[in-house]
């Protein structure tokens, strides 16, 4: 696993971004990095601007202050290098599963012909276990299968960075567990950089190398960074037996329950600075 302090330049550098709606800052002075191949989860309560941060990273929204640098270049809009897995799967209902993935592929590879896109789309669907449903429309798929198609679409274009906005929050627990492990495997195998928004603590512990904890909005900040020291591979079934799991989980939960409320940016805890948020490594 790549350590958080990397010698090479981080893949994503978020430099002091803020977003205001009607004069109130949802969040401001947000700084963090995501290293190459690292998987970072952003955890916080509703209303702290998590989704807005993800949209800014995706290039779908622009910050009012600050900037985001990806691979050394400031971003100005969306890019095929940063794929998004949407919370609502966002499949086109008039296309079959294969056509949805094929559309993404034809955008990535404009000179591929229909046949090549179709074949590659079926292969991508096979990787998420959906070969049998390639010709079905989204209306004929279950919630978990739709989200699988969304994942296949995002992975098919081989982005360097994968952005995920609570991709599993609308699914039942069983499907969610299976998909989390699949995403973990697919992202680690391809060495992609992952950034996921979630409010499921176990999901963050299962997937993340580092967990960013956001204080409550308005005026939200990254209050703490937790380094996940649990070794990989992690599985949903064995996660809670790993030494250090409970300490990590308690630390994050305590933050969500009390510390996220108590954090005041004008009077931060000792040692906190927006540019260098202290990292903690909870151990039992």
């Amino acid at each position, binding site marked *: 696993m790549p350590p958080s302090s990397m010698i090479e330049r981080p893949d994503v550098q978020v430099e002091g971004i803020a977003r205001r709606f009607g004069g109130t800052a949802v969040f401001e002075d947000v700084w963090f990095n995501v290293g190459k191949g690292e998987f970072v989860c952003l955890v916080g309560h509703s209303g702290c601007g998590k989704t807005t941060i993800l949209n800014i990273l*995706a*290039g*779908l929204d622009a910050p009012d202050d600050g900037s985001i640098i990806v691979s050394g270049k400031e971003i100005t*809009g*969306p*890019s*095929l290098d*940063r*794929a*998004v897995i*949407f919370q*609502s799967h*966002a499949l*086109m*209902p*008039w*296309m079959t599963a294969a056509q949805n993935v094929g*559309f*993404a592929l034809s*955008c*990535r590879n404009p000179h591929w012909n229909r046949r090549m896109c179709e074949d590659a789309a079926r292969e991508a669907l096979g990787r998420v276990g959906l070969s049998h449903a390639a010709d079905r*429309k*989204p*209306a004929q798929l279950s919630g978990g299968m739709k989200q699988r198609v969304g994942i296949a679409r995002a992975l098919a*274009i081989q982005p360097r960075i994968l952005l995920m906005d609570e991709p599993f929050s609308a699914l039942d627990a069983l499907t969610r567990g299976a998909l989390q492990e699949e995403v973990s495997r697919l992202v680690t195998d391809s060495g992609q950089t992952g950034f996921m928004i979630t409010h499921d603590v176990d999901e963050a512990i299962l997937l993340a190398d580092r967990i960013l904890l956001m204080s409550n909005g308005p005026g939200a900040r990254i209050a703490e960074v937790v380094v996940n020291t649990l070794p990989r591979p992690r599985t949903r079934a064995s996660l809670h037996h790993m030494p250090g799991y409970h300490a990590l989980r308690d630390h994050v939960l305590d933050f969500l329950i009390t510390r996220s409320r108590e954090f005041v940016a004008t009077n931060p805890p000792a040692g906190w600075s927006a540019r260098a948020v202290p990292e903690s490594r909870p151990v039992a």
Partner: protein
Amino acid sequence: MQQQVPFWRAAALSLLILAVFLGGWEAAIRAATTASGPPVDPEYAALMGQAAAQGGQTAMPAPSDIAKRLFELLRDPFYVRGPNDQGIGVQIAYSLLRVGAGFLLAAAIAIPLGFLIGMSPLLNAALNPFIQVLRPVSPLAWMPLALYSIKDSSISAVFVIFICSIWPMLLNTAFGVASVRREWMNVGRTLEAGPWRTATHIILPAAAPTIVTGMRISIGIAWLVIVAAEMLVGGTGIGYWVWNQWNNLSIADIVIAILMIGLVGLALDRLLGLLARAVAWAE
């Protein structure tokens, strides 16, 4: 939600209603013809023609007369014996041609323009006053202006069809395009799909059901308006034919024309219904 009824039961009831209606009509006409009026002088009758010879009796035909006349008309619907005597099929074909030309011309302008209006809030706001003022105008009010500027009555009828069918398509296209789900547009943006790909692969299919609904409303209005327009411009077409039969006091032909106009209108609506089914999508 209404309960589903078996097809045959609905069909049986429909046929029964039709039979009672036609039977009552037939009986009423029979009763009127047997009660004969005062005798007519044969010389007067020869001079004044059939209506007088009937002794001032009703010109309203019985359903059996209409059926006979319908059979006559449909035996040779496409005959042409000079400009004033052409088969009913020829007349309907003329009307369909005008409706088709005006409708397709309107679609060719309304759908691209609706696309632009739907995409651009500025254009929407700028063009809205014009659309709101022009839309409620009866299409026939354009007829004199069209006759004056185009100077061809047949093309003027096409223009009237064009102007009446443009509004539903324009407004529905603009609405459909403007209400394409933001998440689908975001997918297109993150995939760096260019404007052309976004328009053809995301906006058009997403808005297609709304656009086709507009087309369906338009063709319905166009078919309503063509009859009135042809009554005005004359020459050919089912509307002209109806007016001609009124001048001949041939009520049977008028009833047949009403039936034909209804059936053709139904067929046009079904045609667009098929298109609507082809572009429909379910979530």
